[in-house]
């Protein structure tokens, strides 16, 4: 992997709030991190703000959401001041997103192959013929055994694991520098999850691209990523090197680790998490 001096992405003091009938709700509070060419995991439970952080980076907040930050820059481009056109261009070409359920991300009225080919035509300016060939090659690259068959399949005809491979193939077409993956394998079976992650891993290594991996699964993130941000109530409570996860200091991280059942556990009651209101402050 190529290590660059300057961070690819700088997030400083990111806040996201939502206007609800019960008043403004802060979903993300003062989140800061710098991302190099690495795999960064963001972990937390539901409502911790991990997904909203990812969405805010892409400018994909719901209509009642507002974001602010002291600094938000991607490879030298100031995302806060960039115009709509510039941000849109970045989003398509240099930053990609993979979501949990491929069913919602694929166009249901276009065959799978056509969607990948279209991405090649739009992003690489390929001809129709060339786009088709490259799409087939891409399907082969994500280890789909019968690319021709899948090329002509409709999104509803393929399984979840297959759909997520197709999504990865599509996201890789514009050769992005940063991929934001929000629970990309949570809907998949564990064995399929492993295959899909291995594929994503290979693709990232080949491109030298960075990844933000958002997940609720602490063990998975720790075994897959280089670095982990642990979020609680909208804040980053701890940042760890993935290999040092089991030396976590924050009681929340330790609590999360402890309350997971284990195959080699003793079957006694699981420790539960006692939340300290001070964590959220």
């Amino acid at each position, binding site marked *: 992997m190529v290590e660059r001096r300057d961070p690819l992405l700088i997030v400083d003091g990111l806040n996201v709030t939502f206007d609800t009938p019960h008043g403004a709700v802060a979903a993300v509070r003062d989140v800061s991190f710098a991302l190099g060419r690495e795999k960064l995991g963001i972990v937390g*439970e*539901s409502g911790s703000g991990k997904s909203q952080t990812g969405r805010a980076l892409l400018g994909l907040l719901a209509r009642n959401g507002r974001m602010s930050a002291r600094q938000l820059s991607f490879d030298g481009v100031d995302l806060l001041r960039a115009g709509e056109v510039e941000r849109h261009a970045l989003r398509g070409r240099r930053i990609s997103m993979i979501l949990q359920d491929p069913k919602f991300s694929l166009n249901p009225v276009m065959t799978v192959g056509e969607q990948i080919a279209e991405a090649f035509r739009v992003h690489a300016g390929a001809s129709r013929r060339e786009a088709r060939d490259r799409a087939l090659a891409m399907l082969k690259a994500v280890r789909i055994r019968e690319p021709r068959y899948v090329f002509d399949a409709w999104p509803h005809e393929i399984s*979840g694991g297959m759909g997520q491979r197709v999504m990865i193939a599509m996201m890789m077409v514009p050769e992005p520098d940063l991929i934001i993956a929000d629970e990309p394998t949570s809907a998949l*079976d*564990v*064995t*399929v*999850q*492993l*295959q899909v*992650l*291995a*594929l994503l*891993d290979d693709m990232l290594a080949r491109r030298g691209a960075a990844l933000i991996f958002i997940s*609720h699964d*602490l*063990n*998975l993130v*720790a*075994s*897959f990523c280089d670095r982990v941000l642990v979020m609680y109530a909208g804040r980053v409570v701890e940042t760890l090197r993935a290999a040092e996860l089991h030396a976590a200091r924050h009681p929340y991280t330790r*609590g*999360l680790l402890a*309350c*997971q*059942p*284990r*195959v*080699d*556990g003793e*079957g006694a*009651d*699981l*420790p*539960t*998490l006692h939340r300290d209101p001070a964590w959220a402050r």
Partner: protein
Amino acid sequence: MNPAASVEATGLQVAFGRGRRSFHAVRNAGFSVGAGGSFGLVGESGSGKTTVLRALAGLLPPTAQVRGRMRMHGESLGAVRPRALRRRMQMVFQDPYGSLHPRHTVDRILGEPARVHGLDSIDNRIGEALAGVGLDASFRFRYPHQLSGGQRQRIAIARALIIEPDVVLLDEPTSALDVSVQAEILNLLQRLRRERALTFVLVSHDLAVVSHMAEALAVMRAGEVVEMLDVAALRTAAPQHPYSRQLLRASQGYDRAAGSEF
């Protein structure tokens, strides 16, 4: 037939549809659980584990063709279940957001089954059922949308237990919950099993959850039981079947080498 068994299935087969388009969701499943025992069915999507559970619960659509034998305390579990038989076997569903009627209050959700089975002092029972799952009386008149996922699952458990069943079928009871909430629900289920001498049949894709909850388990793939295991054996010795080993390895986090083996 094992007379000590609380729940028993032998040579269970379930098919949907007819003729060429028929689909065998369960090809051959059999297991037996002793009274007060806890048995796990592990498998991935399409393994037929949930279909087995629904067949036991008598919740398959009328078009499903079921072969084989299912018994509870020696009584045959057929397609038509008398109400008294239903009462003895209850189910907790995977999705706590979908398993509670959105327009019914907790009071009604708990009171209705008690009334249908002709139980007395319903008010007391509702209070006890809530207390039993660790919720206070203030939850009684709330609607499901006013509850968190963990609280809903507690209500679903209270609903299953209010009619005092012997057997509880658990369909991925914590897979929709955060791990910290999962720990609370699993502890609650274990405590209730001890206190009320319940028999559990648990379905999960998560080997860790099953090995925590059950004493024995069956690994299912493509409608068939590929291996039966004692949890003790799972902990100490590696399982025999390659698929069980794959599941075990996959449950231990990401491993690039394992990713290309599968």
